[in-house]
């Protein structure tokens, strides 16, 4: 068991980079949900990982109910919506009461929500291993075998930029998006213009939960759907958000790429220490650029 594995072939490195990119996309969806809620609501939502998990569970149920390959596509539509609505309930029922309290309180409240939802999920879905069918199977090859990856990862690879672009359009070119940006910097003034900032907050929180749910629904076919699956990705997503600059969507995108590709390549170089990579990357980046690689809204 040497520290360094044998140096891999070039095509393996290329494939690994692309696989890393596709992994980044899932991380990005959870992280961007977090960063949006941080940017606008100033709330760090530890429950985001749990919403990701709920996205996967809901997708599993929906896919089972619909059946067949179509099941996945229906689940992809419905599951994030369900999670989004659940997020709305959490915002309106709990979080809204804490906006004027110290941030630490909100952070811990969302953590308590994690505990609660984990047990509720166990009550609803039971404890069996759950697995869901992917809509695409098999591998595809590009460039004479230089790049070789599962077709489903291609789907992930495309979905990430799509979500990012959609979000960019929403934030910059729709009226709601403009109001969201305004709310992010000055909530009181938005109210003073006659716009209900509570509603904007609710929309943003719902959006952030929707994105987490979307991430969960997308990852569901490749993974084991279990209670607690949100914890690993949550801590990585939190680090991505911080490294990217709190509240900065593009920062989150960039940081997700760094994390995903870094981890994938790290696997090739020193597989035994793969688990250390995300934290090491985050620590180094934060030491170099303490407030994140992109401009933070704070």
């Amino acid at each position, binding site marked *: 068991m040497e520290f360094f594995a044998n140096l891999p072939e070039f095509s393996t490195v290329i494939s690994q980079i692309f696989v890393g990119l596709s992994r980044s996309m899932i991380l990005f969806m959870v992280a961007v949900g977090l960063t949006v809620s941080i940017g606008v609501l100033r709330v760090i939502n530890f429950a985001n990982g749990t919403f990701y998990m709920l996205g996967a569970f809901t997708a599993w149920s929906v896919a089972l109910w619909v059946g067949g390959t179509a099941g996945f596509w229906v689940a992809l539509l419905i599951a994030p919506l369900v999670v989004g609505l659940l997020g709305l309930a959490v915002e309106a029922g709990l979080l809204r009461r804490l906006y004027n309290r110290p941030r630490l309180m909100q952070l811990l409240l969302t953590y308590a929500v994690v505990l609660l939802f984990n047990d509720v999920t166990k009550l609803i879905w039971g404890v069996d291993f759950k697995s869901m069918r992917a809509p695409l199977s098999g591998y595809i090859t590009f460039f004479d075998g230089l790049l070789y990856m599962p077709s489903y990862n291609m789907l992930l690879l495309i979905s990430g930029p799509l979500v990012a672009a959609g979000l960019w359009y929403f934030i910059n070119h729709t009226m709601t998006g403009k109001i969201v940006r305004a709310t992010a910097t000055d909530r009181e003034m*938005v109210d003073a*213009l006659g716009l209900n900032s*509570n509603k904007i907050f609710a929309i943003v929180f719902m959006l952030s939960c929707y994105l987490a749910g979307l991430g969960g629904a997308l990852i569901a076919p490749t993974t084991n759907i279990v209670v607690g699956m949100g914890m690993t990705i949550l801590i990585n997503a939190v680090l991505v958000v911080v490294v990217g600059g709190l509240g900065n969507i593009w920062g989150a995108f960039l940081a997700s790429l760094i994390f995903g590709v870094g981890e994938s390549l790290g696997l090739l170089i020193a597989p035994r220490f793969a688990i250390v990579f995300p934290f090491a990357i985050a620590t180094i980046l934060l030491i170099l650029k303490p407030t994140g690689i992109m401009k933070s809204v704070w």
Partner: protein
Amino acid sequence: MLEVKDIHTYYGLSHILFGVTLEVRKGEIVCVLGRNGAGKTTIMRSIMSFTPPSQGKVYFNGKDITRLPVFKIAKMGLAFVPDNRRIFPDLTVEENLDIAAHAGRGRGRSNWNKEKIYELFPPLRELDCRQGGFCSGGEQQMLAVARALMGNPDYLLLDEPLEGLAPLVVRELVVQIERLRKEGLSILITEQNVRAALKLANRVYVIDRGEVRFQGTVKELEENEEISRKYLLV
């Protein structure tokens, strides 16, 4: 008509306003004068219910608006321009106006649009695409007023609109505010700059330590030297 009746307002534990009563009638400019810390901004914040009064009432056109959510009050036709402008720094000048127009769509008779705004404040036309955060103080003040107007309000609350502006800009702004009254707006201004404020106002309130010490016309104030000396340090 905007009526404030005997309001008491607290910030946390500190008692700021002690039974303030004032009114703004339709089509007039009313000026609240007082020193730093006298409670001028708090009056504005109480009316808009950012900091709702714990006692007393605020009526707008006869309706009790005390403790209504801020956005509902704004929707009724009250627009607030805060003392530090509070332009949305990440939005361009145009976007700042856009969202205000969106908020005020289908409201009021005055029907402000961007063209009309640019006519009133010509410098804004050139700044269209600049981010609000990069505008100078005078430009921001114009933008803040313009933004408030885009919501087609009937009443305008201007909190220290002249503070920190160069004399030339002050003169310009005074003219523009005067024009707004002619457009049919009723305006409540708080000011420290007594000279400029008196040029504008129909009626004046002087407040100190959270209480109204004087009310009357500009002429009455000018005649009452004791008040001027004691509370306004002119």
